[in-house]
């Protein structure tokens, strides 16, 4: 297999010829929609006054929840998640109505003419502490418990207790949410959306319109970025566009502008964490007593599984003797938070890394020394707090390769002497160096999501059309799956025609999420292609009177003893002999099981491993910080495509840096999000990446589990390696002076936060 093959759309990306939904040619009668967003965080929706629309010199039409023929609900897990507010307003910026017009500008202008009357009945709940005090939760607490924390704490030589905050993060996919619906005959609707989960769009639309799913065709060619933000939330806007098309009997496009997108769509959950930790003098963890508050927002969305993943990742690479972690999903009057690359995993891992760091400071020991006594190992133990065995930890292997790549030991010395010199000469710069190992579980925590379908058609000219349930959002899934099919038939990959994800071709798909896209769809596509291949082999064996084992596919040809023919001749011959050249394929992940009530089982098919070393430079006068260098080793098993995987690692890491440094969501006291565009919400720019950035795939890697060609998932894990940089900043703060209190540092580590911790 060619592991260096390029993304299938790359030249069309570069020439502007790749078509996104907003680029699709507009039909004559296309209507554009713009949302009316609430200007209160909490209250009774009294009246939607649209009388001003009548005075406008152009056509406009308002659609509200009253127009919904079916259920006003698209909740992916729990019912009661409306697409348009009906009785209550539950966050500032909630969609209340959509206004349609013939141009986007007219729709946007008209939408600003609609007044929403709200009766305020109580103060909104905006902070996690407030929600916790008022017992405002979306679900019962999710509890991870193992051993007796009380006893272990009591018997511990040392104890620490404190709290810290972890900020949220806007996805800031460059393409905002967009959906385009075409009504057809006999209640058929074709919905194009920028969604990671076309099946959920199909069902959401079906539910809202009260029309069977079979009549809804949900299509996705590509997303201009998703990162989890378009897993469940895309359904809201797809359903609003479908509803508008249903009412007007015209095609309708809903495209959010950036301000609306950031206001009305969920983000990474912000967390607040309270901890008590008991440990020995050498830093070995005995008992960990945690309260995790996550901000679910106004409705549940995917917040339950996000908390579960946080809880099942806070062990990271460490054996926990006893733990009691209570995860509360807080119900607040802010937008409902949702999936975001890592899905709670990064927050969970930041919790443990932060605690270990604070222990290391307390004991005045290097962080790595604390880690070393706690790693999963035969001596310490190999069972996670949720019961799954970490049968073969790759920590040592990963760290060995990282040491080599980064010259870790040498750098520890040079950072130390740098800081000494700075202090000595009265300069304001300090450096910090920190490593972080990571383990990440692959599979959806809910077993039923771990299934996939594919459809492969071979045509009589030998061309191959591939369709599967996964969506392409830049992560290179389409090319990876095409590589799998090409490998099956041993044809060049450009012989495979990649097509839009379409619920009419492959039904009942799972979200493209949890890093699982290529694991699931690659296997399903292989399964489909392999069935056709088997039929081809039987046919050829018969034709040339050879045994099946003599048939060999190679280089776009097939050979049976002395006979050989091209793949297209083969396809034609199959057709001629009435052999079916089309097949569906199916895959379900084996071995996994999970008891969500007890938080116990074997939720992950396998783990990926990785490690990063980051070097920070800070200015103790101003709190400014830079990442000087980062080295990364990431375990991708036997990579399907090294180009694509390296891209995922680099991009994920930088996205993680943003989350932990410059990306700050700021809300006003009335619940209004103030950072609704890139002028105020700062994601990393090109100068914010490490000046020296070494990224390598783990060498001699494999996957003990039978994944597609023994590869491993890569989408999410690299993001959380950025925690190494957060720790490096803490190290630099620690070196800034005697007053410094790195344990005060909350994420994101903005200049304000850094300066505060330096001052202690």
């Amino acid at each position, binding site marked *: 297999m060619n592991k260096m093959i390029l993304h299938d759309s790359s030249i069309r990306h570069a020439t502007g010829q790749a078509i996104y939904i907003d680029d699709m040619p507009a039909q004559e009668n296309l209507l554009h929609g713009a949302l009316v967003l609430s200007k209160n965080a909490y209250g009774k929706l009294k009246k939607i006054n649209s009388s001003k629309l009548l005075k406008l010199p152009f056509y406009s039409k308002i659609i509200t929840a009253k127009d919904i023929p079916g259920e006003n609900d698209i909740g992916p897990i729990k019912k009661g998640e409306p697409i348009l507010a009906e009785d209550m307003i539950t966050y500032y910026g909630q969609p209340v109505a959509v206004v349609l017009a013939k141009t986007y500008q007219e729709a946007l202008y008209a939408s600003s003419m609609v007044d929403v009357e709200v009766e305020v009945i109580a103060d909104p709940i905006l902070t996690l502490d407030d929600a916790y005090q008022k017992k405002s939760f979306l679900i019962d607490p999710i509890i991870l418990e193992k051993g007796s924390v009380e006893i272990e704490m009591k018997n511990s030589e040392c104890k620490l207790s404190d709290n810290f905050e972890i900020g949220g993060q806007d996805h800031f996919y460059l393409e905002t949410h967009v959906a385009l619906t075409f009504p057809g005959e006999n209640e058929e609707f074709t919905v194009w959306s920028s969604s990671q989960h076309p099946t959920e769009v199909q069902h959401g639309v079906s539910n809202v319109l009260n029309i069977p799913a079979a009549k809804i065709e949900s299509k996705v060619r590509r997303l201009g970025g*998703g990162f989890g933000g378009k897993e469940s939330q895309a359904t809201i806007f797809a359903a609003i566009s479908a509803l508008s098309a249903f009412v007007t009997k015209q095609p309708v496009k809903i495209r959010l502008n950036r301000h609306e997108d950031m206001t009305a769509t969920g983000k990474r959950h912000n967390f607040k964490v309270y901890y008590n930790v008991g440990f020995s003098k050498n830093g070995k963890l005995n008992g960990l007593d945690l309260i995790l508050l996550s901000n679910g927002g106004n409705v549940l969305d995917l917040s339950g599984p996000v908390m579960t993943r946080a809880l099942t990742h806070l062990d990271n690479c460490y054996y926990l003797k006893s733990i009691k972690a209570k995860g509360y999903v807080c119900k607040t009057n802010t937008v409902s938070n949702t999936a975001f690359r890592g899905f709670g995993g990064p927050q969970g891992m930041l919790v443990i890394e932060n605690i270990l760091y604070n222990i290391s400071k307390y004991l005045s020991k290097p962080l790595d020394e604390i880690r070393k006594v706690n790693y999963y190992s035969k001596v310490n133990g190999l069972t996670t707090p949720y019961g799954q065995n970490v049968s073969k930890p790759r920590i040592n292997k990963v760290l060995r390769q990282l040491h080599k790549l980064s010259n870790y030991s040498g750098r520890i010395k040079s950072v130390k002497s740098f800081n000494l010199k700075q202090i000595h000469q009265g300069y304001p710069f300090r450096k910090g160096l920190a490593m972080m190992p990571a383990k990440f579980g692959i599979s959806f925590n809910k077993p039923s999501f771990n299934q996939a379908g594919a459809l492969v058609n071979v045509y009589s000219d030998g061309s191959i059309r591939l369709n599967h349930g996964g969506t392409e959002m830049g992560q290179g899934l389409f090319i990876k799956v095409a590589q799998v099919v090409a490998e099956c038939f041993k044809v060049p990959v450009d012989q495979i025609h990649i097509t839009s994800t379409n619920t009419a071709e492959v039904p009942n798909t799972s979200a493209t999420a949890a890093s699982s896209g290529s694991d699931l769809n690659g296997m399903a596509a292989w399964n489909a292609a392999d069935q056709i291949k088997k039929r081809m082999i039987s046919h050829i064996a018969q034709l040339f009177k050879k045994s099946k084992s003599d048939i060999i596919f190679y280089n776009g040809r097939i050979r049976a003893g002395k006979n050989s023919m091209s793949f297209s001749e083969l396809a034609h011959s199959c057709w001629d002999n009435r052999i079916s050249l089309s097949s569906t394929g199916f895959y379900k992940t084996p071995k996994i099981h999970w008891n969500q009530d007890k938080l116990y089982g074997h939720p992950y098919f396998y783990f990926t491993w990785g490690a990063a070393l980051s070097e920070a430079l800070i200015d103790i006068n101003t709190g400014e*910080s*830079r990442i000087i260098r980062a080295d990364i080793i990431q375990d991708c098993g036997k990579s399907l495509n090294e180009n694509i995987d390296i891209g995922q690692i680099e991009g994920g890491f930088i996205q993680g840096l943003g989350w932990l440094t410059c990306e700050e969501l700021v809300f006003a006291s009335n619940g209004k999000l103030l950072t609704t565009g890139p002028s105020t919400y*700062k994601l990393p720019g090109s100068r914010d*990446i490490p000046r020296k950035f070494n990224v390598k795939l783990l060498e001699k890697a494999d996957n003990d589990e039978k994944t597609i060609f023994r590869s491993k998932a890569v989408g999410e894990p690299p993001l959380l390696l950025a925690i190494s940089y957060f720790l490096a900043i803490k190290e630099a703060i620690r070196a800034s002076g005697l007053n410094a209190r790195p344990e005060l540092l909350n994420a994101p580590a903005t200049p304000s936060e850094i300066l505060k911790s330096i001052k202690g």
Partner: protein
Amino acid sequence: MDLLQPSNIIYVNGKKTIISNVDHDITVLDLIRTNLKLSGTKEGCAEGDCGACSILLHDGLNSELKPVNSCLVRVGQVVGKGIVTIEGVGNDIAPHPIQTAFSEENASQCGYCTPGFIISGISLFNSNKKINDDTINDAISGNLCRCTGYSPIIKAIKVASKLRKPLKTIKFLEHNKDIKLGNVTYYNPKNLEEMLKLTAHENYNFLAGGTDLNLRRPIVNEKKNVIICLDSIVELKINKITNDNLIIGSCVSIEGFLEIVKNKIPQLVEILQRFGSPQIRNQGTIGGNISTSSPIGDLAPVLLALNSKINLFGHNGDTSVLLRDFYLGYRKNILKKDQIIRSIEIPLPNGGYKFFCWKLSKRYDQDISTISLSIYLKTKNNIIEDIHIAAGGVAEIPKYLESLCKIMTGKTIEVSILTAINQIDKFVQPISDLRGTSNYRIESLKGLFKRLEKCLKENSNTMSIMDFKDE
């Protein structure tokens, strides 16, 4: 003044294109995507900060191609000019080398940001700048990519720079640039006299680059509105450079200003290079920046510390005023409705003086200041003899800190700076907002005074982690 013939010509990717059926005062981005059906240029933010909408702009007379954010430029501003979109760069059959490089270096993932980056890369190739990490980062500082983490993008631009194939433009000359779009009429007076006549209109706005005003303009104008473009007024682009003074026309772009001061006041280079992005700097003007009277505008503190003067023009003719007397309150200034800034007069730093200007923001590039500080001072025998300090982000207006200057004068550097640090909260009472807390603003100001002390001691110009060279 009446419209001549309604003009409606724009050269799009070298093709003379007649603009018709535009009912509203839309942006160039909307024009190319919706009306011209060129969908390669994307909208990522519609506020000038992501670069997905980048295009190249030229005036037909010379071959200079300036990158701009098409979401911030209105159609009325490009009539009679030429624009180049991604479609004018190449296509999959005949790609430009930079497009091939992006494809081959894995510089796109979702691809939504890619056309914008390519436009920025091309504008670097078309300039006379050397190509290295620094100029590449600068060229793409107005572009955001959420997928790749930038490394492959930087690499692709480097790879393509080996060929450095510039983009050729056609030459043309269009005289009439006035246009009516729905209820909005754009006039392009060629001199101040014509401009004054236009102020007879009832409902008008002056427009320079539009990087500020265009964000605040209505999406649809229900009433008639007139835009008086200052861009073609010759008097506003005249610069006079003497040995001790710079007089800069108000319609000089930030990028143009950067070129002028590069050698005269090198301390300004960093602040100006961090001003927005190339797209913003090419479009935004110094007159516009001062007129906005924003408390966090980047030019005001440096110009205040240098004791600059501004020259105004209106029905009452020419007047002039010290910049420190220009600001009245939050985004308010002394300009009368019909008055404009004609030019800015900056005394050049005197030989015996030192000049420092620093900006702190959440992100280094393309970010508005949380706080900024400019200090112009003279020391003799370790005594501060004269000092002028101005700060941004500390009050409702950019502030010249006169009383602070007074207490710092006549003392040794150490005592003077210690006094400033201990008493700073007497002179500024910054607020907390989304860019930083009031506590941070105070503490970081103190930090900047410490930086000042160290710079004076070390006789260095600045001390920033960005300039920090390692290894």
